[in-house]
Structure formats: C-alpha cells, structure tokens
C-alpha cells in the first residue's frame, strides 16, 4: 500500500500510542501526532498529510473546530472523526463540516485500514 502521511490527533496518549503501534505494524512510517485541535491544524499546514484522524473532545480546540480549519486550508486532506462521542448532533456537525468518515470509539484498526486502502488507491490512480 502507498505509504500515506497520517496525522493522529487525540488528547489521550494511550489512543495515539495504540493507533501508532497498529499502523506501524501494518507498514505505515509517516505518522505524526497531535494532542489537540490546534496542533493538528498546524501539523496539517506543515506536513500536508493524506489523512487526519481527529478525536472530538479535546482541550484548546476540539475536533470539529479543527476539522473546519483543516478543510478550509486544504480540502483535499481526508479527515476522519474518531471519537467516542458519536452522537447524532456531532455526526451531523461533522458531515456538514466535510468529514470524510466518522468512526465510533473504540476504534477498530481494520476500519482505518479500509479507509487508508481507499485513499491509497485514489492516490495511486492519479
């Protein structure tokens, strides 16, 4: 699979570590970590990732605000909301702000791999 550039944004070190370990095991090497929405927005400007995984409930800037900024700066970056807070209201907000997927925690790595596979295919076809 294409070695995609991925930003993992969650205020929980445990969640970032588990995702990073699982994706590293699957051969992804270009992984970047952010602990809040502000860092995720800044990382996206600097690293131009293919995909951002965003938690919703975070300090400083929450995931939905970060989603809005990331998409405003670069609409081609795929953004997946990966949160325990999969309420109807949040799902609606995320869709309106341009989220590409919404995964309910606990996150199954297979779900992320499916998304990465699709992005990889799209990138390879260009």
């Amino acid at each position, binding site marked *: 699979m294409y070695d995609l550039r991925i930003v993992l944004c969650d*205020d*929980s*070190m*445990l*969640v970032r570590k*588990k995702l990073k370990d699982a994706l590293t095991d699957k051969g992804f090497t270009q992984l970047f970590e952010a602990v809040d929405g502000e860092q995720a927005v800044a990382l996206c400007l600097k690293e131009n990732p293919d995909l951002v995984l965003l938690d919703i*409930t*975070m*300090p400083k800037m929450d995931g939905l605000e970060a989603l809005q900024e990331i998409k405003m700066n670069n609409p081609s970056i795929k953004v997946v909301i990966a*949160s*325990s*807070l*999969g*309420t*109807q*209201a949040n799902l609606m907000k995320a869709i309106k702000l341009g989220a590409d997927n919404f995964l*309910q*925690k*606990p996150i199954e790595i297979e779900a992320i791999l499916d998304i990465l596979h699709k992005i990889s295919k799209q990138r390879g076809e260009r």
Partner: protein
Amino acid sequence: MFSQYFGQYLFNQGLVKASELERALIAQNDIRVKLGVLAINRGWMTAEQVDAVHHAQTRMDKRFGEIAIELGFIEEHLIEELLIAQPSAHLALGQALIDHEIMSYEDFAQALNQYKQENSLSDEQFHAIVNGDIKVLLEAELVNAGISGDSALVDYISLFAKNMIRFIDSGIRMEIGHTSDSLSAEWMAQQLIQSENYSIDRLTVIAGSEQAFLRLASKYAQENVDTAGEMMVAAVGEFLNLHNGIYLVHRSNQGAELNMLPQMVKRGSELITDSPIKTIIQVIGSEFSFYLIVTNLSELTS
C-alpha cells in the same frame, strides 16, 4: 454477565465465603455446565432428582440424560433442548461452586430460587439478565437504594457496568452506596457532562487508590502499567471518556443531545462539585476496587 451479581448475592447472603466465591469466579471460565445444573435452572428437574440420577450413574454406565428419561424425571425433547442450549455465565458459576463442593445441587437450587424471589424478578426479567441485560438487575438494586426512578442515572450505571465488563473485567460486581457530601481519594479521573445548550454541567468521577488506578490502567491498556505516570493517567482518563461518550450516544438515541468536556486525571484531589453527589458506587473487580461517583444527570435534560 449475570454471574457476578448472583455471586454477589450469594456472598452478601453469607452462602459463600469471599475466598470461595473468588475461587469459583476464576474456575467458571474453564467449566462445562452439566445437564443437572441446566435442568435445575429451567425448573425442569429438582435438585433431588439430579442427585438421584448422579447416584444411579455410580451403578450403571449410562449418560445423565438417558437415566433421567428412564426414571421419568424429564422428557427426551427437553434433554435435547438442554443439550443445544448456550449456558449462561451464572450457571458456570453455579457449576463451579458445585464442582468445588462449595454448594450442593440443593443449595444451588434454593439460592437461585431465593435470589429470583428476593429481587422480585419475573421469569422474563430473569431471562433478560441471564442473556446479558444487566439493566433489569441494576434497576432492582436501584429500587433498594431508592434511586430507581432516575432513568438518566440508571442508564449511566448500567452502561458503566457493561463497559467495565466489555473493556476491563468480566468478573466485576457493583455495590450501590448512599450519597455523600464529599469524598477524597488518592487519584481521581473527572469529566463534566453538559446540557445541550452548555448551560448546565454535571460531574462524573472515577476515584481510587494509586494501586487501583494502576490495575485499571493495565487492564484497559492491555499492557503492564506499574508507575503512576502518563500511561496510567491516559488509560484511566480515556476509559472514563470512552464510557461517557458511549453514554452520550445512548442518550442521543433517546433524543437527548448532551456534550462533554475533556477529562482530567489528578492526584490527591478532594472532590469539589457544584451539584450534590447523587450516588457513590463501589466497583469491585478481581484485582481492584474503586468508586464511581455520579451527580444529578437528570438535571441535564430537565
């Protein structure tokens, strides 16, 4: 899922000692539930009949079912039904207690019936619990604690039990305690849940000793966490966050949209909350014990 509650009942009633219950809870995972226990649970055979079949088995080389049919205790089609039935966890606990000679078939049958009666559970409710619907049982316990009418709280506690079982420890039990004005603990993980318009917030807390937090973190992170550092803080905080998120999704499905703030995990804090503590629940696992503290969640949607 039912077993820990049935076990708790047996323990509270003095029918088994703590060490015996612990032994049976560990043993139940490797236990094959036998026809006698299955038949007693369905009410299709009495304990005396099961004992009689076992006694007969010592004199003849025949299976339990064959003898039970021959003695006229049960019909063949019911034996067939028992053979294909998926045994529930509480039966594995019962079988473990019997196999370890902590209880006889008669003791088990009596305790099971007594338990059903004392909790005022209908057969349908009992079936629901056996099949994993612990909400029914918790409601029965909450009636005793005098807080059963609070559906927001009942939902919160039953979901917490389910999430504990799903993510931490399948052998937990929960003791619903009384309200208290204040509480201090070595460590606290806290998270505020907010009303839809953000005007009201209510606190949820996991409080416990450092040892309890380390064990909880190890179980949730599925790796050994032996120091009170970043991983412990992240794991306990994330578990509370995950649970509260699932609770908010659950409430959302019922038409109540709530929000929540990022979780905080602090050492040596005394609980300070704007709203009174609604209930304190002691959560007891195989390797830890901690408190779940909940304020008045029903006010978030009032």
